[in-house]
């Protein structure tokens, strides 16, 4: 008989706690950010397609489905490291021997050579080039992601990728430089 009471007591306890937990699971559900979103925020959003996918989001989806994390040259090593942390895998060097710290660039159209073919406008993934047919085109530097996609379609090769200029706001002391002293 005591065994029976014990069973009833334990069973009812289990039922009560089960109900509480079940209620809590529904009521206090935390909507976690889907992994694709998290990966997408880490990627640099240049939309350059160098990973082989048409944009950053498709690559984020591919990573979530098990693709390699080292296919993003514009992100450099920093991005690979962050992705490795997020995905719980080992960070590895960039595929294709790309530079670990990519130089930021922006497109620059040599405007007197531009023939106004609008091909670069169509290629730009972020609509950072303005212009019209047979009119000179120009790049909105603040919007350009430096993805290189406009360079290839240009029939007259008038687009250069120039490194982003250092301003006083972005200038840094070179701490690892070896001081050069002149010996008289």
């Amino acid at each position, binding site marked *: 008989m005591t065994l029976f009471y014990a069973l009833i007591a334990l069973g009812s306890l289990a039922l009560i706690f089960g109900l509480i937990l079940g209620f809590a699971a529904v009521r206090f559900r935390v909507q976690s950010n889907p992994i694709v979103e998290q990966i*997408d925020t880490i990627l640099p959003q240049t*939309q350059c397609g160098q990973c082989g996918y048409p944009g*950053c989001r498709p690559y984020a989806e591919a990573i979530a489905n098990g693709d390699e994390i080292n296919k993003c040259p514009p992100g450099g090593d920093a991005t690979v490291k962050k992705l490795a942390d997020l995905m719980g895998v080992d960070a590895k060097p960039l595929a294709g021997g790309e530079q670990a710290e990519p130089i930021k660039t922006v497109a620059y159209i040599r405007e007197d050579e531009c023939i106004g073919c609008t091909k670069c406008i169509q290629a730009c993934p*972020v609509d950072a080039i303005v212009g019209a047919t047979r009119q000179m085109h120009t790049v909105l530097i*603040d*919007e350009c992601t430096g993805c290189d996609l406009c360079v290839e379609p240009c029939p007259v090769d008038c687009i250069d990728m120039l490194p982003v200029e250092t301003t*006083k706001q972005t*200038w840094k*002391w070179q701490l690892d430089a070896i001081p050069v*002293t002149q010996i008289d």
Partner: protein
Amino acid sequence: MEKLIAQIKQGKVWPFPGGIHPPGQKTISNTQAITRLPLPGKLVVPLKQHIGANGQLIVDKGQQVLKGQALTKPIANWSVPVHAPTSGIINDICQMPSAHPSALPELSVIIEPDGQDQWCELAPVTTPSQLSHEQLIDIIHDRGIAGMGGAGFPTYIKADSRKAIEYFIVNAVECEPYITADDVLMREHAADIIAGIEIMQQLLTPTLTIVGIEDNKPEAIAAMQAAAEHNDKIIIQTVPTIYPSGGEKQLIKLLTNKEVPSGGIPADIGVLVQNVGTLFAVHQAVYEGKPLIERVITVTGNTIHKPGNVWALLGTEIKHLLDCQGFSPVPQQRVVMGGPMMGFTLPTVRIGVVKTTNCILAPDHDELAEPGPEKACIRCSACADACPASLLPQQLQWFAKSKEYDKLKEHNLFDCIECGACAYVCPSEIPLVQYYRVAKVEIKEQQAEQVKAERAKERFELRKQRLEREQEARQNRHKRKPAAEKSADEKQKIADALARVKNKPAKGDEKSAVAAAIARAKAKKQNQDTELEPDNSDVALERAARKEQARKYKEQKAASNTAADPDDKKSAVAAAIARAKAKKAAASESDNESTSAPADDKKAAVAAAIARAKAKKAAQAVSVENDNSESEVATASPADNKKAAVAAAIARAKAKKAAPAVSVENDDAESEITTASPADDKKAAVAAAIARAKAKKAAKAEQAASVENDNSESEVTTASPADNKKAAVAAAIARAKAKKLQQEGSDQ
């Protein structure tokens, strides 16, 4: 609060944690009165000397300017104008090295003084108490006043604080070694500074104004106390000499026992701090109407013969300052802008003085040794003891070195005031502040990039949406419409289009043939209203019309180019092109028909073939007699698809043959023309090539059509695929022949 004010009035100060006691070295420069420098040979005035945006240039190269004349006018928020420091001519407006450790170029106005030092018209105000708040703010803004303590924050923004200010603090601490600019300014101009404070009191209406002065400046304290005697709302507070009590947050803590929250500004806790030099400039701007064009600068160091304070016009090159005070540089001389703690070594001495320059230090190697090589951290924690912001410099250093920016933020890196106390006490000579500065820049860069990435993502998504929308719109244009919707207006459209085509000046028979073919196709289409058909008929018509126009234009151009009557050859070429075009149009028509309405395939194909044949005929009629081809075509017209295809191929070949044949004949007949214009030959060859290519294309299309129509055939069921092949072979042979003929023609 009353208690706090009472405590403040009793002279109580609340020490902040940390701090260091570096040797003051102030007596080197604070014993003499402020001197005035002779006019320099040129002045380099950067447009941006403060935090915020540039003003807009309102002067031109070569323009004569008067002393105090505005060179820029404020445009965006936080932009402050700059003024001409003396009268003279603007030699140039160009990028010049700026007063920054990087010396990155900055747009500057270069003025060559004319020696007159002639003021522009000033508008002094004798009784500022009669001015409204806005008028005073405008004066402070237009006179270009920015914080002169070091950061260069636009004063008009601070003075126009939207938050209620309880304590107005005047920073006269000047805690950094060597610098005595504020000290001597207070000694000489205490009354003016107090007047400036009163203007700020009028603007901010604080409960209490506290002037904090370090106890190593007794003369300045005495002068200020004497000047402030009449105003019981101003308290001159003596604070102990400790570096960095001149830091804004440290001074607030020291004088009011309040702490600025992390990431906040003093106004959040009802406090506002102004530098004493700024207040003197405010006095000058209001009472004298003078814009900010000069400031007191301490020129000091062991390599300076006459160390002291000077009134220097903004834009005066550092070299001029050094030369005037007597300068005998040592090997590898360093010239530091600012003090030894927070200043930076100038990359060049050809940099102009700006509004925030308070000291030029030219030390020899004994007084300010080059930092030795960095050694390993021994975890002595001297830096943590010295830190006035209660941070963990050692910890921050590790994170900065390993670029762990999240950790740095967690450890409140952005509360670091970069005072350099940690680096000063470090026995391992680790340049801690430098690490923090680099890390701060990198974090800011990352944040900016994050924002940029967000924007790029948004723009990318928007673009994708736009492209999808466009594609949908395109598809809708071609979407099949229900037959019921068609009918009346649709028919009207077609009729209009036909009328348009017909009304066009009929130039050649080929055109009418095309029109006829199209008309036939249309009629057929209209007959079967129940069928669902793509509604691109009028588009096709328009295209045909466009093509016609293009062809006409080409003809005209050719005519004008050769400036001769259309001779036989030319007409032959034109005919060939026309033929090819007609063929293509007809083929596309038949193609269209066969795919969309399989029931009608045969008829359409036949019609197309007829149209083609007719077009050819017409063309040939225009060019020369070529009757056999016509008869061939005639035999071909009896309707069946395969045959039609084969016949078309043959006709094509014939036509091809005809074109060069014509040219050959013409060559024989009119040898003068050939010899006179060998270019015509070439033209003919080119035309033939074009015609060939077109014919090839048409043949392909026809083959496709004929394959589709195979099953509906009854007559030529015996060997239909063979027939197809035959047609292709025939076409190939025809092509080869045409080529050969054309070669012969060109040879002749």
